[in-house]
């Protein structure tokens, strides 16, 4: 049972990351982004990007981001975005299908 849960969790994380990557294409073009690469150092990002990223997370993972969570640390890498989503969604993050 434990092994199945771990596998399920890994698949879920990969699913979330894939969705994030797809969203980031429109800002970073075809550039390949590492999971731990700091988006705010890679190229040019501005508050319009940040706003769209925040809205993307809220709309696609079904929760409102409170002011105290609007810390750049939660949004600076694909890993941290994924972690943040997971921490906010409890055990069962819902990944909205397009």
């Amino acid at each position, binding site marked *: 049972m434990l092994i199945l849960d771990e596998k399920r969790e890994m698949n879920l994380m990969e699913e979330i990351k894939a969705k994030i990557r797809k969203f980031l294409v429109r800002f*970073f*073009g*075809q550039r390949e982004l590492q999971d731990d690469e700091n988006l705010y150092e890679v*190229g*040019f990002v501005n*508050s*319009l990007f940040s*706003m769209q990223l925040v809205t993307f997370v809220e709309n696609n993972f079904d929760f409102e981001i409170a002011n105290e969570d*609007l*810390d750049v640390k939660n949004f600076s890498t694909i890993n941290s975005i994924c972690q943040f989503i997971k921490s906010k969604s409890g055990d069962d993050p819902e990944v909205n299908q397009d």
Partner: protein
Amino acid sequence: MNSLGNNQQKAKSVKIKCVVWDLDNTLWNGTLLEDKLVTLKEGISDLIIELDQRGIVQSIASKNNYEDAMNQLIEFGLYEYFIYPEINWNQKSQMISSIAKNINISTNAIAFIDDQSFERDEVSYALPDVLCIDAIHIDSILDNPLFNPDYITEDTKNRRKMYQDAIVRDQVEKEFTGNPDEFLATLDIVLNISEVMDGDLQRVEELTTRTHQLNSTGYTYSYEELKTLSQSKNHKLLIASLKDKYGSYGKIGIILVECEDDTWTLKLLLVSCRVLSRGIGTILLNYIINEAKVENKKLKAEFVQTDRNRIMYIAYRFAGFKETEKNNKLTVFIHDLSNTPSLPSYIQLYVNDKKVIF
């Protein structure tokens, strides 16, 4: 009934930013696709030019053949006065919605002129806050307060040109196949920050009343208050202008800092929506952060959250500001100055005409 021939009440403060024209029997006499010849209505040219000078942009909503209509406008020498013309067979309300979206203004700042009550009614029904004017009342437009801006600056007169430059620039951006930030590097963007002088005061006042999204506090100041602030030794009142190789964006940002002995308080930061994607808000914030560090000051900032300025809230937070107090709607931020970001490589910065790097 007011002089425009309608019963609409309009909030006094909402001046018209855009006039949308019907063509047949409104701009010109006759119906283009039916009559052999159409003639410009008397005084129309002068009216269009005057509105243009007042910084009121103009567009078209006409059920017509696009090529024929554009050619006719070229023949009349009026083609260049219109931006984002909608000439097709859609409903006029759809055309006006598109125009509003393209120009990025609210429909409550749009006036629509059409000779047919059917069209005016259709628009009023779908977009109740558009000011609909019967073509027979065209003569009373120039004297109507809604079409008289409170001030006319250099930027006001160039407003149409700025939109046209933006259209070219946006088209180039759309066709660019590299990374978005590579595109920015091709623009040769230059940002100028300078102390507000008397000649800037009207534009500063205009920006404080027109800007809502990229505005940290929404504080407005009268011309006199701004004059006093610009001369005060305890304040920095700065204005930012932007240009790139396609043209100027005009004066697009304001910074107001209150300077006490050991603490600076950023009271107002605003940036025109015109430069929304250029990262100017973040750069201006980073400039102040760097300056505060260099001058060895504590840096605080005031913020008033509205339902439109979340993007500015995010800009402050992501730049490293943290909330310290919250009284009602007023938030006080503090920045510990431990992480001072650098200027992006795609932009050149001049402060009071001196090149600055950080």
